[in-house]
């Protein structure tokens, strides 16, 4: 069965890059522009993996992850967040909020795929 991934990012270029990479590898990708948008879409569909940026308008990534983990159906679903090298503190916060793993920006397409395969299985 095709695995579906929710990609949450306020940057359109980033969303496009994620979509091209993951859709190209056979995943079904749904996009959201911020945490609130993402939460609404996650309530409607059960995704197999969530990929989210941390710095977003309206609802930031930390809040989004925390809210998502409150939903019983999202216990156990891997949540991958995007972070940067300088954001060591943010990484800890995101893990504490319920994040499963992370990708450090900037990243290559194959790094993103490797992480998706790592948490979804190949």
């Amino acid at each position, binding site marked *: 069965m095709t695995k579906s991934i929710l990609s949450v990012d306020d940057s359109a270029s980033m969303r496009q890059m994620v979509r091209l990479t993951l859709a190209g590898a056979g995943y079904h990708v749904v996009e959201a522009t911020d945490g609130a948008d993402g939460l609404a879409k996650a309530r409607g569909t059960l995704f197999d993996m969530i990929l989210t940026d941390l710095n977003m308008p309206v609802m930031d990534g930390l809040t989004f992850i925390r809210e998502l*983990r409150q939903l019983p159906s999202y*216990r*156990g*679903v*891997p*949540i991958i967040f995007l972070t940067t090298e300088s954001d060591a503190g943010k990484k800890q916060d995101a*893990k504490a909020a*319920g*994040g*499963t*793993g*992370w990708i450090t920006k900037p990243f290559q397409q194959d790094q993103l795929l490797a992480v998706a395969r*790592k*948490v*979804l*299985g190949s």
Partner: protein
Amino acid sequence: MTQADPAEIFRQEAQDLLEQLEQALLDLEKDAGNRDLIDGAFRALHTIKGSGAMFGFDRASAFTHHVETAFDRVRRGEVAASAELIAVALAAKDHIRTLIEQPDAADPAEGERLLGALQAVVHGAQAAAPAPEPGRSPADGAAPGHPVLWRVRFRLPKDAMALGTNPLLLLDELRALGPCTVTALTDALPPVEEMEADGCYLSWDVALTTDRPRSAIEEVFLFVIDDMDLKIEAVDGAGPPKKLGEILVERGDVPAAAVDAALAGQDRLGALLVKAGAASEGQVRSALAEQQHARHEDTARAAASVRVPAERLDGLMDRVGELVITQARLSQLANSRGDADIKTVVEELERLIAELRDTAMGIRMVPIGSIFGRFRRLVHDLSRDLGKQVELITVGEETELDKTVVEHLADPLVHLIRNAVDHGLEAPADRVARGKPERGQVRLVARHAGAEVLIGIADDGRGLDRERIRAKAEEHGLIPAGAKLSDGELYQFLFHPGFSTARAVTSVSGRGVGMDVVKRTIDALRGTIDIATTPGRGTEMTLRLPLTLAIIDGLLVRVGAGRYAIPLPAVEECVELSAAADTRSTGRSFLNIRGDLVPFLRLRELFGSRTPADPHQKVVIVATGEQRVGLVVDQIIGSHQTVIKSLSRLHADVEMFSGATILGDGTVALILDIAHLVDAGQARDQQRIAS
């Protein structure tokens, strides 16, 4: 089938291990801090000790134990691998060999003395120990392709599954690294009523054999590594499979005392430990799984190569030789009957037998590096005894040649290297005075060239003294005073029995025996020796040896009524002897081969053939190295698988032939010795230039 004696197998194994040990020790001399070398030396000692005790070599085992203990301290970084330590360890290695191979000849006092020396070095050198490189475990340095057994134990945080980490995927990733044995530990499992549905209560022990580095294993746990318990240890895979108790103690699950106490009982160790409450059932089960895994991997690796006694290989080669001869007879018969069906089968058989021959000969091929090892020791000892600094550079260890050739080569090479170090290289002070580096160099180079192997022994020393050799040759009455000789001819006197130009006889060489023995041995192997030297720059001896002694591809030719085989790899081309070239004077005959003048020899004259010559004679151009010569024959019959039979002692001085072979019709053909024929042809060439 002969029943192999386990003690004999151990002796063979120990021989290999001792060679490895020596190699590691000599390498350590240059690279004192190298962990891989230290570990290699330790593992060799460890195995000799362990197996020795099993096969009744108690003295060897006990002695090795002490050496191993000393090396354990080196391994732990408490003692430096100093030059003194290596010198003592090399001597100890020799003593271990004696203890194993000729226990009666081993002097207990010598053993005591060595252990005393070892103690002195180890205790005296403690302060000088270099700090071990941080975070570098032996297996981290493992070269790719060298699998290491890793012991991975991990426990995830209880909420890991709730947070999206799937332990099954982690195990899958580990399995992708190499063969795994996974044991789940259920010790921390709570009663069902306290269990949370997505809580992670299990921990896992994984025995993983992989050639990937530790970082690859850590990578698997990337997202959880900070929050989990993870222990990754490399297990020392050398030596006999580990006992259950050893594994449990190494893992830190059970104190050693508990194992010893349990061993005193009669029950199975695992059951006892569990009963005594020292270990949980899961821990024991997991340790047993690792043991099983290691055993399995060991067997798999052992099956990849087989040890076979040398005489069985010789036997196989003999049979293949007979088969080739029989097949030649069959081909002859099939051709004379003219039955196309039989011919097809015979051709198929011919192809199969040629392949079988190549396979059988391939089995006999061993890399020459197997004897290079002992030369490093030789050079090490020589440089110490002679007070010279010598660096031995070896190139082409992987060059393969026939086992018998390699075995017979060892002694001649020892002589040549000894000569290079003793006579070739100057004393350090002289070298400095001549503006050369203080440290002399001896290069040992092996390489393939067609069907031959070239082995060069070159030094950067003083070079041969032409005049001294000449004076000596005159003094011995070998040449008349003032005779005209080429350098090559003059240097060949070095191989004359009793000929030594060394002024002083040292303990190492210069007794006038040796070089003639070298020459004789190389001749017996159907090889040649060339000498090149530049005064003040050094000398190079080049041994030219056939790849194999057993079967060669030959070109069968007819000269008069007799048939002769020419080793095919030496044949460059065959041309017709034109009437114009034929009518020239027989004393100096040359062919113009695309602008090159190639001397030719009339084999009819050489062999005194009286039958009338064929109207269309052929010339077979043969070559060794750079030199070519044409052999005039009556007819070229075709290629022939030539099984070489040696000539009897009675014919040992016939230089033109290197052996004989049996043809399909049962007649005998002589095999031409190309090296000698080329020399004879080139000698004519010299005459031409001189005249």
